[in-house]
């Protein structure tokens, strides 16, 4: 017996679609008559929230929820969660580039919002949500931890930023465009390096205050990469 999901997929792919030229012409005429309202940045971000898949929010929450995992020693929690942060960053990249994976980026680019705006709105939404989760975990860990909230936050953010930066670079390359889950490879590499450094006592021997500067530097680099990606995407779509 065919499952509901399979049936839905089969029907949705194989049912009639309207003629796009006539649809587009009608929508333009319709909007002229209704007087299309201008959408502000905040409204665009709120609208995009509805298009982000639930699983992205849920997985991000699950990663954050490992804080309550009872089998992890409390001093190890920071490093365990930090080891999972690359996957959180990877997920945000996967979601932001979703339209491209499904081959609808051109279509998206001709709708009433600019591709640049949509990309930025999605990136802002997911990153803000994940950074908010990170802030909460940092506060929870930092209270009972000798490192403090700022260092704990930096410890969590560094793998997130590194994965995000590398994934954005990879996504701009031909390899990234052809491999939907390339972010997994990046996340696994970052996690492996992080775990190796932790087991060799690298972090324990480090002056943790420097991590705050490293995190700030990576944040700046991340902003630069996001900007570069947005510019590249706009060029590609135009």
């Amino acid at each position, binding site marked *: 017996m065919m499952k509901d999901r399979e*049936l839905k997929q089969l*029907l949705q792919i194989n049912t*009639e679609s309207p003629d796009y030229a006539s649809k587009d012409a*009608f929508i333009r005429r319709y909007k002229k008559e209704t007087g299309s309202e201008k959408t502000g940045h905040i409204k665009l971000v709120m609208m995009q929230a509805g298009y982000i898949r639930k699983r992205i929010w849920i997985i991000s929450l699950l990663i954050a929820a490992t804080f309550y995992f009872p089998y992890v020693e409390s001093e190890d929690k920071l490093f365990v969660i930090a080891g999972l942060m690359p996957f959180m960053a990877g997920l945000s990249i996967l979601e932001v580039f979703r339209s491209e994976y499904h081959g609808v980026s051109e279509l998206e680019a001709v*709708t009433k919002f600019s591709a640049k705006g949509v990309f930025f709105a999605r990136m802002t939404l997911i990153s803000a949500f994940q950074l908010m989760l990170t802030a909460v975990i940092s506060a929870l860990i930092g209270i009972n931890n000798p490192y403090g909230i700022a260092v704990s936050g930096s410890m969590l953010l560094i793998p997130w930023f590194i994965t995000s930066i590398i994934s954005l670079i990879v996504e701009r390359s031909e390899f990234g465009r052809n491999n939907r889950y390339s972010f997994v490879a990046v996340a696994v590499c970052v996690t492996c390096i992080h775990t190796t450094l932790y087991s060799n006592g690298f972090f324990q021997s480090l002056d943790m205050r420097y991590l705050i500067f490293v995190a700030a530097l990576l944040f700046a680099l991340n902003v630069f990469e996001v900007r570069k990606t947005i510019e590249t995407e706009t060029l590609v779509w135009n």
Partner: protein
Amino acid sequence: MEIEEYYDKIYRYCYYKVGNKTLAEDLTQETFLKYLKSICTRPEHYLYTIARNLCIDEYRKVKTVSLEEETVEPADGGFEQSVVDREAVAKALGKLSEEDRELMILRFVNDEPLSEICKITGLSRFALYRRLNNAKSELVKYLEE
């Protein structure tokens, strides 16, 4: 209201009611123009109601073309499997009763929540659930034939 989002849904709804692309397109556009003249805070539900009434008016005017008689064109101009699937789906949907086809389109193609379908069709939740299950079994049977 996001017209881009609803246009495809209303088009499909009309198409599987009247079985003709051009007519479905006309009815879809007429639905939106009628909607434009009215004031409604529940767009989706009201759009379907307008489309449904327009389709009923159309039935009264002419006998419609069967879905099976329509030419099936592949979505991206090509693959054999895609043509076979589209043809199989069109044939299977064509074999369903009109009411069942409407339910399948609303639920499985347009992804409407059950509460909305109840409002559109006027069915109770229990009746809708039972009829959807029957329609689904029939459709799967036709698809597997």
